[in-house]
């Protein structure tokens, strides 16, 4: 059935990636259709109702600085927010918020609904409409045809999704939700390479049956931790999380269920994440560990349901329940929904350009878990970039490609297109080599130029960042100039601030400085913090910038897609093969592809220099 509807951009999937993609493209002036199986289930939190956390918090801050939605939605649904890693240096701090799951979807749905030019349709896309080797629209299971000049696919874990609980399994995208079948096979038939991944989720518990007195309480930070700028005026009521742990008894019961575990009986073929193992994986791999920490996290303000973080499992339901009831506080627990594992199809993102456009099928973009990532934030960041770049491509502009030296988003995208996925990809602080520069606190400032280029941020916000940068420079000058009296010694303030325990945010140092500086710090604490960090990290920032320069030189060497690596006989056979397949855009990218040796990079460099 043909509809006469023609759109600039069609987005398939209403999850975190799909929502960001659709919203960004629409706000950039495109007519957008968001096709999803269930329009009332936008931006669902399929697993943990939390946003941010180590390195992921950076992604959210960066999206917010560029005009993404995730930070704003999070701040309007957060019921516990904290800054993680405070025991370490500010470069690796990261904000995290526990959200009200239902409210998160509501807030996102309201924002999507209020976006001019953005329509929604219920349906399951089963294949693409092609115009030669270009995507030109989609066809739904019901036979509706929607034509679009750009198509963004963000299918999450739904493509050929298969859920496992013990020996029971059935096709599903999330529990009780139908999978998406057809589209993945269609893409594979068009020649795209496909892999199978696995992820899992823990059981949901009835909070009324938990004895919290036997657990440890963990509260929000007293001061709100916001992701978005400007933040909302009010903070929702805050609720605590609770800490407990497994013990020898729990492990005994879990071990007893392994013979019925789909992970250990070979029923699950997909590769799961090593960094986020299921509880049965943990007891098998770390036999000497007597206990594993568990977090009981509220799912919302209007529900008694709790998420048990650290207990992802696909063991049979009876084993799950028996094991849970050995955990302090959970002796009487009622399980609302068992944990499960889900297997799904993904398409290795080395088949994409850095803009997320498919190399083989132009005008087609892939974003989110279908590219092999795990996590809402990773998905949203890709969706956002895909939406922006699809719109830019329609407007005849070059894609925005963030560098590893600019943003965690840049690191994420670069890793995706250069590395072979060995497990679902999650963002980590350790992946960002320029982490001293890429802090969560300076996302708006360091991405100001990119925000201007993308043009989704209102002028007022751009001006606010400019002003903050000016104040930062001003404060920095005062910091460099001032001297303080400490322990009967007169020290340059800059020297004093280099002590790890000293911070202008703290009372001790604040009281020592001049009234002028105090005023500045009170006026713009954020700018003051950044100025202070520049001093604290002094030589390190400079050296890291020098390393950025070295990287930039490699990145500046562009490798045309027509570059014939087979001709470069001096390259190692492995490098020739992967380079020919991946077609990196720059020499910098090439250098990060596994299998490409330093000498290979040198050969290409020598070759390029000679023209």
């Amino acid at each position, binding site marked *: 059935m043909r509809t006469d509807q023609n759109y600039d951009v069609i987005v398939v999937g209403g999850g975190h990636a799909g929502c960001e993609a659709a919203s960004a493209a629409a706000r950039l002036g495109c007519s957008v259709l968001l096709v999803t199986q269930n329009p009332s289930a936008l931006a669902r939190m399929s697993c943990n109702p939390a946003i941010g956390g180590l390195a992921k918090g950076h992604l959210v801050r960066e999206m917010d600085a560029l005009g993404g939605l995730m930070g704003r939605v999070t701040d309007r649904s957060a019921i516990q927010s904290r800054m993680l*890693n405070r025991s*370490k*240096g500010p470069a690796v701090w990261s904000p995290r918020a526990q959200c009200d799951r239902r409210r998160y979807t509501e807030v996102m749905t309201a924002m999507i609904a209020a976006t001019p030019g953005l329509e929604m349709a219920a349906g399951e896309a089963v294949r693409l409409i092609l115009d030669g080797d270009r995507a030109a629209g989609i066809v739904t299971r019901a036979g509706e045809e929607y034509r679009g000049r750009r198509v963004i696919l963000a299918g999450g874990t739904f493509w050929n999704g298969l859920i496992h609980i013990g020996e029971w399994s059935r096709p599903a995208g999330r529990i009780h939700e139908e999978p998406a079948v057809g589209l993945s096979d269609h893409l594979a038939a068009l020649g795209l390479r496909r892999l199978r991944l696995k992820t899992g989720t823990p059981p949901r518990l009835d909070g009324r049956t938990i004895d919290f007195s036997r657990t440890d309480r963990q509260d929000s930070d007293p001061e709100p931790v916001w992701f978005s700028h400007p933040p909302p005026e009010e903070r929702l009521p805050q609720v605590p999380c609770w800490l407990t742990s497994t013990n020898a008894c729990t492990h005994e019961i879990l071990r007893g269920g392994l013979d019925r575990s789909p992970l250990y009986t070979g029923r699950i073929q997909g590769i799961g994440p090593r960094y986020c193992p299921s509880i049965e994986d943990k007891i098998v791999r770390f036999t000497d560990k007597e206990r594993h920490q568990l977090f009981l996290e509220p799912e919302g303000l209007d529900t008694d349901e709790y998420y048990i973080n650290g207990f992802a499992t696909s063991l049979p339901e009876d084993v799950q329940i028996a094991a849970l009831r050995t955990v302090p506080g959970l002796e009487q627990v009622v399980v609302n929904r068992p944990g499960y594992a889900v297997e799904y199809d993904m398409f290795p993102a080395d088949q994409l350009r850095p803009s997320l456009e498919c190399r083989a099928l132009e005008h087609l973009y892939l974003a989110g878990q279908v590219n092999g990532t795990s996590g809402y934030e990773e998905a949203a960041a890709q969706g956002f970039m895909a939406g922006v770049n699809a719109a830019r491509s329609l407007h005849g502009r070059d894609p925005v490609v963030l560098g590893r030296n600019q943003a965690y988003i840049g690191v994420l995208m670069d890793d995706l297109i250069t590395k072979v996925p060995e497990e679902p990809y999650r963002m980590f602080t350790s992946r960002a080599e320029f*982490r001293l520069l890429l802090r969560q606190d300076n996302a708006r400032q360091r991405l100001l130029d990119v925000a201007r280029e993308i043009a989704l941020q209102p002028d007022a916000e751009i001006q606010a960042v400019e002003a903050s940068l000016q104040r930062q420079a001003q404060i920095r000058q005062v910091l460099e100039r001032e001297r303080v009296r400490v322990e009967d010694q007169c020290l340059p303030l800059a020297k004093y601030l280099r002590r*790890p325990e000293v911070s202008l945010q703290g009372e001790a140092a604040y009281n020592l400085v001049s009234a002028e500086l105090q005023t500045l710090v009170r006026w713009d604490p954020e700018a003051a913090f950044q100025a202070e960090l520049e001093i604290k990290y002094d030589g390190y920032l400079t050296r890291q910038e020098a390393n950025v320069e070295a990287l930039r030189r490699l990145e500046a060497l562009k490798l045309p897609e027509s570059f014939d690596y087979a001709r*470069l006989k*001096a390259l190692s056979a492995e490098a020739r093969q992967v380079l020919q397949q991946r077609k990196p855009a720059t020499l910098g990218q090439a250098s990060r592809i596994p299998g490409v040796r330093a000498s290979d990079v*040198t050969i290409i460099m*020598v070759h390029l220099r000679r023209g």
Partner: protein
Amino acid sequence: MRSNTPDEETIAALATPRGVGAIAIVRLSGPRALEVAAGLVRRPDKLRACATHRLLPVDIVLEDGSTLDQALCAVFRRPHGYTGEDAAEIYLHGSPYIVDRTLERCFALGARPAQPGEFTLRAYLNGRFDLAQAEAVADLIAAGSETAHRTAMAQREGALSRRLGSLRERLTRLCGLLELEFDFSDQEAPLVEPTTLKEELTSVDGELQVLEASFTRGRLAREGAVVALAGAPNVGKSTLFNALLGEDRAIVDATPGTTRDAVEAVVEWDGLVLRLVDTAGQAGHFQGPDRQASDRARIAARAADAVLWVWDLTKGVDQDPPPPELADRTLLVGNKADLAFRPQIAAFPGLAVSALKGHGVEKVKEAILRLVLPDGGLQTADGPLTRERHCEAVRRARDDLSRGLAVIRDDRGQELLAQDLREAATHLGEILGEITPDDVLNRVFADFCIGK
């Protein structure tokens, strides 16, 4: 130095010294090397069919079909030969005419003249060995003494590369653990205890310090040591110089100031090459040409690894002392012991010799070797640093580590420490040539002769 793509071009050069000799070797490398070689010979099909590392008797023929030479051709098929490319070596009779005509033919058949070091550059680019090993090839060719040869061979075989590689590996591992901790800080126990971290860093730094110190040995082994004889005029420096050489090289006369320009000679003692420099006498009151000679002598002494400061024992202890800035490498030698009184000799704080009679000269040799050789002599099998480039990189890595240790001491945060470790590892990697900028390559391969 290189103006064409390494992947497409076939290069040719004479690999043996120019001139008349028994054998001359012309070397070819590149994708068309075997084709070019086949074009030179009477039976190209046999050469084309020849397996790698085989030697084939061939007739080299000119365009008109006449035989230029009866030669042997060694065939190397990629990736097995020295360069990692298809290559051939042709063993000709050592006549410059035959060589020139053969090379001419090679160029006519599509090869181009190789640049200095280009064969080794290609080997490096083809991943046959790392940069330090490539440098060792140049050293091997230039080796003028047993020690220089042993050092180059150890480096060529990867002694230095292995040493650096293992230190780098230790740093990378620590850095990895620290970085992991950023992301898993909720784990109860830290992945690396601060004390372990400190111990490991101190230990790596200790090894780097040993490496840095090994540069003295490595450089000595590679380049030899310079020993200057200096002191006031007419104390017998030139006599001692001749005695050390065992031959009459410098002109000796009783007239003060006989030596004006420095005289040099190379000797090999205990496998170590030494350049002995006999300098003009130095005195504060000199004018004119004597003044200039005296100044030059001062400069030569300053550039030396060891200075023999010579006194005339018959003139008592009130003589010009050696320059204080050279104190750490100066050996005080009292000459003319045969003419001096016993108390004068007894009061002398240095080595008493009679250069004329040859008394004590062996002792001076031993003292020189003790002075220039670091502890443990010239043992170089462990792979010492041999170039200033290496030493600079190790120094930088040590700077990084000392900053890192300060970060631990002041508790300034793991994110800073991780960066220090990463940079230290990068600096060590530079020695091995990991992601090497063009200019570094050019510098390294500029040392080579053509045909290597």
